[in-house]
């Protein structure tokens, strides 16, 4: 935990002191953000679809089928969008970071970088941290949007609801606090994904077997952290906004 905290502190501090490796930040943004787009689109869309499909069964009992849009929008924006995006990006990128940095560690490339006068945290961890936090924010917005669209598609085509009504109730149900809650969470998730992935990568020992182990640990630990932090942030936001 101490080493992890030191890594996080150093990576954050490096954001505010030169040199900042902008080309590496943009490369990572492309890899993490654009590269994760297909899985985020698919996950968000089908989550919205299944949410509408499942919720209508329960809402029917109370004669509240027209509330489907409200339920899908609130669920996606406050909870499922941020968490599922965090978990999917964690599975893809925390694993990628751990394996890439782990391979560099076991082949002495990290030592070579230090020997050539470059701080590996500044060169490798800080760009990944900045890129993940920045891109996860926008990926979450995209996941929310396609999730609501997926719910709309199911509600109108399979459940026979009015599309205008669905979108209107969705829009009306979202308050300022809900949107803030949904957009604060990816900032924490992005931080967790990048720092945990890089931490396990840079601590890799034991050759190729160690790289595999580091990759697994990075995904497991970052996923668990994301869910725990999601609960804590939810509680905090409910305390602040009252919903």
């Amino acid at each position: 935990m101490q080493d992890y905290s030191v890594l996080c502190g150093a990576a954050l501090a490096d954001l505010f002191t030169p040199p900042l490796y902008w080309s590496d930040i943009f490369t990572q943004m492309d890899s993490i953000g654009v590269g994760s787009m297909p899985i985020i689109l698919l996950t968000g869309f089908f989550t919205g679809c299944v949410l509408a499909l499942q919720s209508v069964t329960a809402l029917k009992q109370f004669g509240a089928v027209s509330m489907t849009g409200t339920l899908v929008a609130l669920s996606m924006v406050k909870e499922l969008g941020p968490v599922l995006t965090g978990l999917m990006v964690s599975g893809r990128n925390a694993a990628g970071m751990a394996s890439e940095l782990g391979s560099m560690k076991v082949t002495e490339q990290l030592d070579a970088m230090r020997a050539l006068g470059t701080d590996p945290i500044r060169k490798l961890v800080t760009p990944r941290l900045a890129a993940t936090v920045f891109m996860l924010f926008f990926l979450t917005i995209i996941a929310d949007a396609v999730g609501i669209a997926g719910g709309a598609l199911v509600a109108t085509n399979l459940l026979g609801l009015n599309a205008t009504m669905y979108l209107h109730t969705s829009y009306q149900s979202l308050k300022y606090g809900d949107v803030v809650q949904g957009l604060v969470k990816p900032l924490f998730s992005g931080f967790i994904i990048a720092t945990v992935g890089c931490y396990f990568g840079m601590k890799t020992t034991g050759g190729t077997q160690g790289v595999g182990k580091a990759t697994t640990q990075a995904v497991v630990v970052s996923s668990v952290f994301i869910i725990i932090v999601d609960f804590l942030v939810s509680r905090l936001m409910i305390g602040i906004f009252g919903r």
Partner: protein
Amino acid sequence: MRGETASAGAAVAEQPEHAGPVVEFENVSIGFDGKQVLEDVSFTVERGQTLIILGPTGSGKSVLLKLANGLLKPDSGSIRIFGHEITAMPEREIFELRAHIGMVFQESALFDSLTVEDNVAYRLHEEHVSEDESHKRVVEALEFVELGHAIDKFPSELSGGMRRRVSIARAIISGPDLILYDSPTGGLDPITSTTIIELVMKQRDVSHTTSLLVTQRLQDAFVLATHRYDAKQGMRPIAKDGPDRGVDPGTKFLILNDSRVIFNGSTEELVHSEDPWIKGFLA
């Protein structure tokens, strides 16, 4: 200079018209997971000298090189490079000191995602040297290791020997005052090993760079100690009836065994050593 820590990064960066030894180890010890790897190691390397470090596998040779470059911190003892005490030096200042140190790693440690040109120019790019100047110096360094044709290749497209030569080019491109070679011929066939040793010798005899060389191959060590590089004739043996009596006076040996230094001296002292372990090791 003893015990003096570099107080400012600028002083380190200016380096190093230091009059004393380039490398000084004094009672250095380090261990990992309760196992002592180096114990009470002391030696010095003067400017222009080549110190060949020999020893069986696991005797701490590579650890010693990493200590010399500040990549590891000793548990106790003092390490001075160009007169700067590096054991107490912050990492940021060590980065500046490393601008004067080149290192060739055991498995080359080239960056997989970069071309040969970008690997060799890595340090120049970090120092914001212009593209034209950088390209010119990369071509020079690659021609020195006879790999000019591989400039656009990626490390995965190179053989083991070629990777090692690129690693040497990367280490020498900034004209370092100290080069650390970690088993530069390890895992290579004899012909390729000879090519690498010739490059090490060329760097020693052309640039007179101080160096530490770790190897397990005795024949490589003795080729270095008994040959010189000549620009016209290439590698050739030193005349036995000449003033140097067949050995390079600037090439010394250090032997490690069981975490300790068991020999530190010249080639002649080594071959005439009466120590039974050394005799067995050399046999």
